[in-house]
């Protein structure tokens, strides 16, 4: 996987949150996404997009994220990252 700048990483995380693969950031606590949740979200996005599930922001994944698309989420917000207690 290419090494990403923090800006690219933020963009990728925003994208995943926007389309339902990550829970939206908590504006009160500012809690960060865990690495595990991020990997899981990337894999879900790749699976949904028909890409190889690498779990990282590779070129194919970044390319698909730049493809024009519908504004609506692909999965209900945060479903991928949530777990039953």
């Amino acid at each position, binding site marked *: 996987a290419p090494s990403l700048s923090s800006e690219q990483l933020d963009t990728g995380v925003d994208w995943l949150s926007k*389309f*339902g693969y990550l829970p939206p950031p908590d504006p009160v606590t500012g809690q960060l996404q865990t690495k595990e949740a991020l990997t899981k979200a990337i894999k879900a996005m790749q*699976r*949904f*997009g*028909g890409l190889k599930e690498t779990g990282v922001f590779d070129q194919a994944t970044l390319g*698909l994220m*730049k*493809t*024009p*698309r*519908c*504004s*609506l*989420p*692909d*999965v*209900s917000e945060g*479903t991928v990252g949530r777990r039953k207690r």
Partner: protein
Amino acid sequence: SLIPQNKWNKRHLSWRVRTYPKDSALLGRDTVRALMYYALKVWSDIAPLNFHEVAGSDADIQIDFTKADHDDGYPFDGPGGTVAHAFFPGERFTAGDTHFDDDEAWTFRSPDSHGMDLFAVAVHEFGHAIGLVHTSAMESIMRPYYQGPVGDPLKYDLPYEDKVRVWQLYGVRDSVSHTIRPGGPSQTAEPPVLLDLPENRSNVLLAQDAPDRCSSHFDAVAQIRGEAFFFKGKYFWRLTREKHLVSLRPAQIHRFWRGLPTNLDSVDAVYERPGDHKIVFFKGLKYWVFKDNIVEEGYPRPISDFGLPLEGLDAAFVWLHNGKTYFFKDNHYWRYDDHLRHMDLGYPKDSTLWKGLPPHLDDAMSWSDGSSYFFKGKDYWRVPGSGMEVEAGYPRLIAKDWLLCTEMQSDSPDAEPKSTETRGNVQHHPDHAENGYEVCSCTS
């Protein structure tokens, strides 16, 4: 997908293009409306849903071209990125509404790969508007990513994946086989019948018996799909919702409204039925019901079906105030409930209850400004809102306010001017006229 699917509880859904692309050089308003019509038809062809274009602000599916943050929680982001979205069915005010990013270069039948194909995106978004969510299936129109044009709107056939999903929500439309899979025989060899779109009429021969719109009184007037139709003899004129004449030349009734007798010399009254949006024509003691511009089977039928007396009809219109249909004949009027299909009790009543209206109307219609309009002779009267009294300042001239005529103007062949003349916004060039054709250029 993990998002629960909602669906409409009703099967008749209205739609309206509320705002258009700012840069309309590529796509004119009529083209945008036609593409929306065909994109919705893709779904209604296979599922028991019926879409009807309407005027006014209460359409189920409001279509907008907007940009950046437009106060719905889904801001657009300039060219590329997110290009459109639609709201799922439900009880919310925004349910069904569909928004296109006006920063995109919307195209149709573009010769190259540039731009965003409006028809392809509209089919996808209307899928959301009827309850479908995104899918990962590669062949599906409901994949979230833009995949380019999908071909001719008149021949587009949904992928089987999408058909199955919409059938799961709404069931299968009658006459559609849900067992035909890709690669099998086609469902029909003929393309489906489509609502006629405005034609280029520049080469249409001017009929010698065509009436003069500027000096006529009209047999019937109706608002249909938000547009105004003025009927006279065997002809009619059509005005867009912005009150622009589609053509200065009248069209022949039987050539547009398919199924009326070819020898029908006039109609008495016309109205668009609330609920199912079918169009009803009255002539004498008979009536016909149209779905779009095709007559339904089993018509004509007697007007006694409505509980009307066997004397014919002067006028028919739906009052926006209560959704009821009003019939006028001579000095009386009746109130009919099109949903329950029966005449309300207590009618007929004396038409003088509508203060300021003359008896023996030609016809009436409601309009997108919420008012009702009544026509007789060369005059018309306006009754605003839910009142039953004519507004001050009426009657006014139909020809001047509706049909783009100036005073003393005539466009009958006999009255053709001998030199270039401007009538309203149209310049006529008799020097270029030959063999019965007339050459005009529009200036607005």
